[in-house]
């Protein structure tokens, strides 16, 4: 029943990656539709009139917007396969807290890292480094953010890993050398089929962003 679940998405979106991972984890068949962000489809505008953004999950004709809300929805509808949120209320609150932290603290700097230059880019570099430092410390010696099991916080952050090379090249930001724990964590996540399928090639992201900077933004 693939037509029951449709995902409107953009291949390089770390937010779209979250929903893709969740769907793969649950073994849910879905139809993927690539959106051209410079020319959004009528369906996208109809299904997400408030924000007009991807990803949009359409299930039996009804839209669910916002990636983490989609992931929770998917987890609640298909609870028995590969649970994404833990069952203990305190662990769940911890997971939601860290996802909220990631969303609050990365959205601004991550865009500026590749779309800005000079002072604005430098400020974004500092902000993003602070986020990585905090997450690195929160991860500690655990295999995943929630402990031994892959879960919500991992899903929320792993998509950013496919952008690390881009941030390093375009913003001259040291990530892989400085945050070895996070890199090991990312490799661990990539061993999961859902993550390997959902994440794009890092070099492809870099090429796309570099081209965009040159051609559309007129930078470098």
């Amino acid at each position, binding site marked *: 029943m693939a037509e029951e679940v449709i995902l409107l998405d953009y291949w390089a979106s770390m937010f779209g990656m979250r929903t893709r991972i969740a769907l793969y984890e649950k073994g849910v068949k879905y139809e993927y539709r690539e959106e051209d962000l410079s020319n959004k489809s009528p369906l996208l505008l109809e299904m997400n009139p408030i924000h007009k953004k991807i990803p949009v999950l359409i299930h039996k004709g009804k839209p*669910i*917007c916002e990636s983490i*809300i989609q992931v929770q929805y998917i987890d*609640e509808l298909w609870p028995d396969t590969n649970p994404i949120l833990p069952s203990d209320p*305190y662990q769940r*609150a911890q997971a939601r*807290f860290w996802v909220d932290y990631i969303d609050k603290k990365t959205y601004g700097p991550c865009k500026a890292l590749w779309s800005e230059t000079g002072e604005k880019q430098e400020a974004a570099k500092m902000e993003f480094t602070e986020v990585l430092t905090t997450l690195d410390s929160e991860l500690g010696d655990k295999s995943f953010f929630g402990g031994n099991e892959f879960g919500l916080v991992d899903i929320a952050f792993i998509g950013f890993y496919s952008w690390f090379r881009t941030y390093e090249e375009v913003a001259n930001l040291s990530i892989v050398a400085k945050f070895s724990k996070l890199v090991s964590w990312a490799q661990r996540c990539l061993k999961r089929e859902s993550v390997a399928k959902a994440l794009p090639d890092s070099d492809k992201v870099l090429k796309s962003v570099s081209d965009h900077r040159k051609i559309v933004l007129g930078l470098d």
Partner: protein
Amino acid sequence: MGEREKVKLLGVWYSPYAIRPMIALHLKSVEYDYVEEDLFGSKSELLLKSNPVHKKVPVLIHNTKPVCESLNIVEYIDETWNSSGQSILPSHPHDRALARFWSAFVDNKWFPALKLATITKSEDAKAKAMEEVEEGLLQLEDAFVSISKGKPFFGGEAIGFMDICLGSFLVLLKAMEELKGEKLFDESKTPSLCKWASEFFSDETVKNVVPEIKKVAEFLRELEVRAQSAASRS
């Protein structure tokens, strides 16, 4: 749940965000100790220890374990005391997604626009922000009509997650209306939201929890005076 549990809430009386867990705890009849933080003086050791990442209120401390971020705390309260009182989040996954979507809209889009409109000195920025606020109210009106299906609250017959999220701002909004003499909720534009607002204020739990509008208006007046004198000194 045999043992008496220790529940503490760190908050400030005027914050809409702190009101949210208070409403939730009252709905579940959970006894708790309330600690008023002094955000203008210095934050307590307990606050800094319990919320090292953001250092903000509200923080719920349940048997010494802290939970931060107001809506996160409300979900935690709903899940932990799931056999008492009413359910705060809806039961169907799609309804839960809608409740989370609209509360994210209020917190991440609508209220920031209102805040900007209030504090900005630029007339252009204020006009633009107010446009967003008014558009948002119309969107919330539509959402309310669609979600409530004729019942008094977003949550149906009783207040739920989205009511708590938007309702927690109502006292602040009414106080701002009193202060500025400008009405935010216009009955001709958002009749259902206006009706919802008065239902929310009439709710027994809400009445016991929210601060008085006059007190908040006085507090906002003081804040403005402080800001003005600080600006004239610099």
